[in-house]
C-alpha cells in the first residue's frame, strides 16, 4: 500500500454512484467515480487533493470514426482522451480515510461535448482516475474501467 490508493474506478448513474454501470445511452445521466483510500497518519498529510477523471478511446485512426476535435483556427486533431480535474479538500481526520470522489453530467453526451467523430456515442471506451496530494509527493492511479456507449435512437 502507498499513501494514496485508488481502490476502484467505474462509470455509474449519478443517482446510484456506488453501483458500477457499464452501458450508457448518450441521453442518459453519467458519472465517473473514484474510490480512494488514504494510508497516512496525521499530521503529515494535507487535506488538499486533486482528482483527475480520464475518459479514453483505444481507437485512434484518422481513417475511421475515431474521436477527434477541431482547434481554434480550424486545425483538427485526433483526440484520444477527455480529461476533467477538480481541486478539493478531504478532512480525513474527521471523515475517515476511505471516500469516493465523482464527476457527473446530466447526459453522457455532455461528457464528450468537445468530441467529434462518428463513434462519439458509439463504441467501447474506458475511464481512469488519478489522485494527487497538493503539497506532498503522494499520488494514486487507477486501472481502466471499460464501458459501452450507445447512440440514442
Amino acid at each position, binding site marked *: 500500500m502507498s499513501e494514496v490508493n485508488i481502490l476502484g474506478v467505474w462509470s455509474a448513474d449519478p443517482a446510484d454512484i456506488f453501483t458500477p454501470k457499464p452501458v450508457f445511452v448518450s441521453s442518459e445521466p453519467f458519472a465517473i467515480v473514484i474510490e480512494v483510500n488514504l494510508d497516512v497518519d496525521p499530521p503529515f498529510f494535507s487535506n488538499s487533493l486533486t482528482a483527475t477523471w480520464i475518459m479514453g478511446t483505444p481507437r485512434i485512426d484518422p481513417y475511421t470514426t475515431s474521436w477527434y476535435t477541431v*482547434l481554434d483556427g480550424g486545425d483538427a486533431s485526433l483526440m484520444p482522451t477527455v480529461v476533467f480535474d477538480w481541486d478539493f479538500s478531504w478532512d480525513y481526520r474527521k471523515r475517515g480515510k476511505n471516500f469516493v470522489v465523482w464527476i457527473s453530467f446530466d447526459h453522457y453526451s455532455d461528457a464528450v461535448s468537445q468530441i467529434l467523430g462518428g463513434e462519439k456515442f458509439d463504441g467501447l471506451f474506458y475511464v481512469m482516475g488519478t489522485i494527487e496530494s497538493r503539497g506532498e509527493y503522494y499520488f494514486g492511479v487507477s486501472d481502466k474501467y471499460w464501458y459501452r456507449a450507445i447512440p440514442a435512437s
Partner: protein
Amino acid sequence: MAEHESKTLIEHLKSGRKVELPPRKPGNFGTTESRPTKPSQPADKERG
C-alpha cells in the same frame, strides 16, 4: 452528430470546412464517504 460534422478526421480535413472548437459542458463534482451501509444521495456537490 450535426449534419455538417464529418464522421472521420480525414473527411473533415478534406472538406476544408471551418468548424469551431465544440464547447465543453460543465460537470458536477462531489465527495462522500465510501460505500455507505444504506443508499444515500451524494453529498458536497459543486458545479464546475
